[in-house]
């Protein structure tokens, strides 16, 4: 049981990482890996949730927020990230936007027998664009979220956090 609990990624810890990095807006399209964060974000007065209906629009929305002086984070699934290729190029890389992408790693299994092509291609996709990424699977990995923010600020580029939780999503207490 202890092992199982340690394997979880608690949404309060993720939220604390966002607040620690002064995130103002969460630009989001719901996905199965990050759905538990929704209620917490909605209830958090320091964050504004902006729901889009296609992931590419998360990049242009975030770019507008950034140009307006805010600190957005993009929260989408790996499928939507791949859909967003040109938006990542034009709005993210093209505008030197230091944004963190928290990407639900659908299909991630750890053991290497990966069936879901959404998982098969996502790291290759990020490598093709030269986007750094950090894998976060449980609470112990959560400080990597701050590392991603630091790298984004330092490099003035998008940096990704892959949320790999084997289909379990974020877990409440």
């Amino acid at each position: 049981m202890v092992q199982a609990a340690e394997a979880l990624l608690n949404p309060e810890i993720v939220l604390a990482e966002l607040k620690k990095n002064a995130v103002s807006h969460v630009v989001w399209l719901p996905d199965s890996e990050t759905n538990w964060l929704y209620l917490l974000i909605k209830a958090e007065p320091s964050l504004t949730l902006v729901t889009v209906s296609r992931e590419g629009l998360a990049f242009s929305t975030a770019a507008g927020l950034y140009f307006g002086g805010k600190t957005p984070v993009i929260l989408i699934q790996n499928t939507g990230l791949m859909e967003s290729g040109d938006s990542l190029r034009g709005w993210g890389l093209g505008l030197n936007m230091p944004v963190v992408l928290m990407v639900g790693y659908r299909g991630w299994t750890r053991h290497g027998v990966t069936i879901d092509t959404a998982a098969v291609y996502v790291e290759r996709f990020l490598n093709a664009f030269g986007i750094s990424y950090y894998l976060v699977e449980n609470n112990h990995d959560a400080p990597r979220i701050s590392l991603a923010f630091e790298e984004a600020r330092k490099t003035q580029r998008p940096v990704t956090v892959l949320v790999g939780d084997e289909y379990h999503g974020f877990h409440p207490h």
Partner: protein
Amino acid sequence: MMQMADILKVFKEYRGDAIVVPGKGARYWGDMTTRPELDVALMPTAMGGRAAFAFGLALAQPHRKVVLFDSEGDMMMGLNILPTIAEHAPENFYHFLLDNECYATTGGQPVPNAGKIAYDVVARGAGYARTFSYDNLESFQINLERIMSGPGPVFVALKIVPEIENEPVGRRKRFSTRSREQVRQDLWKALGIAGCNQ
């Protein structure tokens, strides 16, 4: 049908201290503007995201008007941002659509269902509270004060004459005189947010 330059000439009297995202209008706006530090001309970025970008700006700067000159080809590629804009309903957001019914920068091929789409109705259906549509300069001119003095989000569809480009992309005149990085820095300085995010 109106000329893009005439629309911008009429609009500039009402600009005040608004942030302007001129879109394709940048080709004329650069010679008309008196507040270039508040102009956000970023072309080229990625097609389909201009309305979302301007919406993000409006959310970030709620006490300042943000005026977007969108085009129908770009808007149709990202049409699904309209419900998001309507949901947040930024009162400072003024969304003008320059509709020339074609992809002018690729030679003038018609957009899907060209000339038969009521974009103001699409915006209203998505939830914009105030929508308008004009196909002649006189009507636009008469109503612009009312449009700009009321709250956003407002959507204004404008029929314009296509200005078709056939020159190879590499030989076309670039209308932006500043780099994208310079545009951002100028904007931050004007808004008093220099240093933010760095």
